């Protein structure tokens, strides 16, 4: 499956990756090759097979509705780049 430069730009944007202009052609080729590899699956008859949500054949284990985590705010905020009045700070987000 051949990707275009615009596909690469879009994927990079969605993933918030800054890709250098001169690398775009490499990414276009590499990602197209990966998709070609996966495309081989299209030759297999899968009409009767249910899509797999998880490779493990076991159902989820649930936990009881109990509060088990206590307040570790100060501990967590030690590694945050910027905090104020208990809030994590990020560059201003304008809606």
């Amino acid at each position: 499956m051949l990707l275009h430069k615009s596909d690469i730009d879009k994927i990079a944007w969605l993933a918030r990756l800054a890709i250098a202009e001169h690398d775009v052609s490499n990414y276009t080729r590499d990602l197209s090759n990966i998709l070609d590899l996966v495309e081989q699956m299209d030759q297999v008859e899968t009409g009767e097979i249910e899509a797999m949500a998880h490779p493990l054949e076991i159902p989820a284990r649930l936990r009881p509705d109990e509060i088990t985590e206590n307040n570790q705010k100060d501990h967590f905020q030690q590694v945050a780049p910027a905090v104020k009045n208990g809030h994590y700070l990020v560059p201003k987000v304008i809606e």
Partner: protein
Amino acid sequence: MEWETVIGLEIHAQLATRSKIFSGAATVYGAEANVQACAVDLGLPGVLPVLNAKVVEMAIRFGLAVNAEIPSRSVFARKNYFYPDLPKGYQISQYEHPIVSKGRIDIKLEDGSTKTIGITRAHLEEDAGKSVHEGFGNFTGIDLNRAGTPLIEIVSEPDMRSAKEAVAYMKKIHSIVRYLEICDGNMQEGSFRCDANVSIRPKGQKEFGTRSELKNLNSFKFVELAINHEVERQIDILESGGKVIQETRLYDPNKNETRSMRSKEEANDYRYFPDPDLLPVEIDKETIERIRSTLPELPDAKKQRFMDEYRLSEYDSEILTANKDMAAYFEKAIQSADGEAKLCANWIMGDLSAVLNRENRDIMESPVTPEMLGGLILRIKDNTISSKIAKEIFEAMWDGEGDAGTIIEKKGLRQVTDAGAIEKLVDEVIVESPAQVEQYQNSTPEKQGKLIGYFVGQIMKKSQGKANPEQVNELLINKLKTD
């Protein structure tokens, strides 16, 4: 041209658990910023989400209450987008395999008819954190206490045809989640909120028009205002030859208008895929039946029972059962009022609701308990007091002056039913009002009916409202007869 409105709602109801959907952090509203955000909620490396059993049970309760199928298997998926209050860069939600599939509920329309609204699905997801844009200078403050709070998103079919129908549907869902005790329904705190998909089409056309999605509708009133406003906007566009664009619009209650949130960056591409951190949830038939057996009586069933058991009108029953607490209050009051259902209903929907609204209080916090109201109604029924005096006593009970019996004795409000005493008052008034007596006696019976009000008024005044009005009427009519 005549236009038809088409509306579908997406309701987010916060599930009333103690801990979060995928972590053991608390969910208490209004806590100091970030004290209820643990490593899982913060999306720190190496953590694993573990699903809260209560959340699954609550979702099943909801599904059963709206006559929905509960699939035996449901899967969590990642919805990918970047926003600072979503630390992982994705929201854990459900996509292809929601926990609740197709269901339906009935709503009551204004003309009294019933309409069935389809529910497409209901799925579980985690809430995001909160961004605070004021008070941090050039920064935005992030509070992640809400991150990971369990939500059930209830998606309706595009079955509603007016803002009023949308509100009726939303109120019904609100009533159901509160009956089920899976959501506190508090709209001010954001525990119950909705987005509306709105489009219009020429009446009679089968295909839907292009829709816009209205966000930020956190009250029943705003839902109605925002939808009506949006319909007007779309009609204006189409009638002036334009085209509606599919977009997300934000409702601004201060200006009563919607504005576009669309930007190139915001073009939705969520790239859902199954979350590899979470295994599929399997729900067996026994679990479903066990949960079904714990369901409470729901609003529709309760309404029907109120009509059958208490002989109330459909209108009264609808109002009394819309709120679970009001229905419980009513049934308690009846027990203390010797089965006087209609009087109890009138007092609860009238005087009690009025004062609760005025003071913005919940019926559970009413200083007049159902037992006290029942006691008051008994005193009306056995003629100890008139309905008029009862209102005075009700106010006194509200102000904490005790129960009806205490207030009647303390204030001497007992109704005068002694025929001799009433006759004395009637005679006095007749003697004092010769002109009115003459006018009365020279009038047609029809006019007399109106004129008698004057005499009754004077007598009630003399008795300070305590004379039994029926007795006064009867005596007066006899005494004023001319023959």
